[in-house]
C-alpha cells in the first residue's frame, strides 16, 4: 500500500512553523543564562557555554518582581472573577432565549469584541477620571480589562450552554427543581469544562494585560509585571540577560499552566466540552 506523502509534508510544515513560533521562548531561556559577552557573540551560541542561574534571584530582587507579580495576580484574579460571575449569567440567558433583542445584544457584544484596547483606552481613561476611579488604579484596570474579556467569554460560554440539551433542564424542573436549582445542579455541572477553560484563558490574558495597566496605573507600586518589564527596555538598554530572566520568571507560570491543562483546553475549545 502506497501512502501519499502529503500528510507527512503537512506534518513537517506544522513542525517547522511550531519551531519558528517557539524559538523566541527557547531563546529567552537561553539568553537569560548567558554572560554579557556571550549574548553578543557572533556566531551566536545556541546553548549557553557557562549557564549562570544566579541571574534569576538577582533580577527578582533588583526589579522587585514580587510586587509586580502580585499586582499581576490581583488584576488577573479580579478580571477572571468578574468575567466569570457576570459572563456566565449573560451567556446562559443568550443561549436560552431567542428574540430580536437577544440577536441585537449578541451583535453588540461581537462589536465590543472588535474594538481594540488601544482605541478604548482614551474614552475609558476620561470616564474613569470623571468617576474618580483613577484613585483606585488596580480596580480601574480590572474593570477595563474585564470589559474587554467578557464579550469573548460570553460568546464562547454561550456555545457551551447551547450544547446542554434543554430537555435536561425541563426534566429537572419536573423532577422538583426550581429554575435556579436546574441551572446550578444540572446546567452548570454540564457546562463546567467550557467555563473552566475560558476562565483559564481569561486569567492568562489578564495576567499579561499591558495597555490598560500602562495607561491607567501611574504609581509603580501598583503596576503589574508586564509594565514592570517594559520599564527595563530603554533606547540604550543593554541588560539583556536581566530582561530575559525577568521575562522567563514572568512567563514560566503561564506556560506551566498551559502545558498542564492543554489537553483540557483544546478539548474544551473544540468539542464544546460535553457529550
Amino acid at each position, binding site marked *: 500500500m502506497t501512502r501519499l506523502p502529503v500528510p507527512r509534508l503537512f506534518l513537517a510544515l506544522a513542525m517547522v512553523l511550531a519551531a519558528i513560533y517557539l524559538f523566541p521562548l527557547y531563546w529567552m531561556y537561553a539568553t537569560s543564562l548567558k554572560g554579557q559577552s556571550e549574548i553578543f557573540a557572533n556566531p551566536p551560541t545556541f546553548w549557553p557555554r557557562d549557564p549562570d542561574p544566579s541571574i534569576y534571584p538577582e533580577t527578582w530582587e533588583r526589579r522587585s518582581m514580587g510586587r509586580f507579580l502580585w499586582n499581576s495576580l490581583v488584576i488577573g484574579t479580579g478580571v477572571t472573577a468578574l468575567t466569570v460571575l457576570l459572563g456566565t449569567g449573560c451567556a446562559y440567558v443568550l443561549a436560552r432565549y431567542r428574540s430580536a433583542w437577544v440577536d441585537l445584544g449578541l451583535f453588540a457584544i461581537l462589536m465590543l469584541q472588535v474594538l481594540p484596547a488601544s482605541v478604548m483606552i482614551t474614552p475609558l481613561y476620561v470616564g474613569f477620571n470623571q468617576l474618580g476611579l483613577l484613585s483606585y488604579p488596580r480596580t480601574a484596570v480590572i474593570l477595563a480589562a474585564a470589559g474587554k474579556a467578557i464579550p469573548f467569554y460570553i460568546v464562547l460560554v454561550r456555545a457551551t450552554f447551547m450544547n446542554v*440539551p434543554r430537555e435536561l433542564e425541563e*426534566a429537572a424542573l419536573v423532577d422538583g427543581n426550581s429554575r435556579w436549582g436546574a441551572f446550578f445542579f444540572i446546567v452548570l455541572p454540564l457546562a463546567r469544562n467550557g467555563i473552566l477553560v475560558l476562565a483559564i484563558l481569561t486569567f492568562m490574558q489578564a495576567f499579561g494585560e499591558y495597555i490598560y495597566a500602562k495607561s491607567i496605573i501611574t504609581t509603580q507600586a501598583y503596576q503589574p509585571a508586564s509594565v514592570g518589564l517594559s520599564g527595563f527596555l530603554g533606547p540604550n538598554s543593554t541588560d539583556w540577560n536581566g530582561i530575559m530572566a525577568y521575562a522567563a520568571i514572568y512567563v514560566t507560570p503561564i506556560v506551566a499552566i498551559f502545558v498542564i491543562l492543554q489537553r483540557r483546553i483544546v478539548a474544551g475549545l473544540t468539542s464544546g466540552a460535553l457529550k
Partner: protein
Amino acid sequence: MTPQIEIASVDKHYGAYHALKDINLTIPRGAFTALVGPSGCGKSTLLRSIAGLESITSGNLRIAGTEMSGVPPRKRDVAMVFQSYALYPHMNVLGNLTYSLRFKGFNKEQARKKADEVAQVIGLTELLERYPRELSGGQRQRVAMGRAIICEPKAFLFDEPLSNLDAALRVHMRMEIRALHDRLGATSVYVTHDQVEAMTMADHVVVMRAGVIEQQGAPLELYDNPANKFVAGFIGSPAMNFLDATVAEDGRSARLEIAGKPVLPLARTLQPGREVTVGLRPEHLRIDTAAPRLQVPVRVVESTGSLTYSTTETEPELMIVEQGRGRYRAGETLPLTIAPEDIHLFDPTSGTAL
C-alpha cells in the same frame, strides 16, 4: 371514574400562532390516554402544558382536583419521560433515579431503598452504578421510566418515548410500558405520532390536528366510527382509501369516480345524486372472483409473506391488503368486493362522516 386530569376550554397562543384551540379533555384516574396526531398538531404542547413546562393562555387545567394554571412544574406532582430520555449525563443511574427524591425530603438510605425497589421493577439492579453513556438505548429508556415511577406521581407524561428505539425494541417496550402502567395503577398521558402505538397501548385515544381535538374515544371506536375524513385516514394502517362518488338514483348505492364507474351498494339510504367521499379500508377490500363489485388493474404487489399489499393502477390509486401470499401479479386485474357496512361515507367539503 374519578377524573385525574381535567382540561377545560384551554387555549394556548405563541404570539400570533394559535397552538391549542379550546381543548376539552377529561382523563380518568388509572386510564392510559394517548394523544396522537401529525407533527405540529399541538399534542406535545398539550402534554407540556399539563407538565407546566408551557403556560396556557386561557382555560382551566386541574390535576387531582387542584387548579394548576400558574403552578410551576415542581409543584404539580407529575413525572415526565422525554423523547431523548433527558438522563442527567453527570450522574449514574442511581443518581438519576433518586434525583427527584431529594426534593421530597427523603434521606440517603430511604432514597437508596426506594431506588432498589424501582430498579427491581424495571430490571436495572445490575446497572445502578453505570453512567447513562454506558447504557444501551433500551436501558436508557428504562432508567427514564424508573425516574418517573420512583416519585409515585399523580400522572405519568410520556413525550414520544419510543421514537429513538429500533423497531423490534419499540414493540417490546410498548408492552412493557403498558404492563407497568397496569401494575402501578397509574394515570398516563402518552404523546405519539404513531397511530399503531396509540391504538395498541391506550384505553382512550385523542386524535389532534392543528391545535384541535378531532375525535376522542376507545381505539376501536375510532377505527369503526371515525368522526371525519382526517381521523379515518389517520387511524388504521395502511391508510384508508378515499374516492369521490355520487349516490345513485336508488339512493342505496354509490357510483365511484374511477375508471369503469363501478357501483357499490350502501348500508343506508342517501339522497340520490348527492356527492360523497367514500372511504374503503385496504383490509376490508376482499378479492372475490364470484361476484366482484369492482375490477381494478394492479400496478405494484408487495408481499411480506403473511400479508400482501397491492397498489392499483387507478386514479386515485387504491391500496388493498390481502392475507397470505398474493394470488395476483402486477399488470393483472383484481376482482374486488366490500361489505356495505364496511363502507365509510364523508361529506366531500366538510369531511364530516355521514
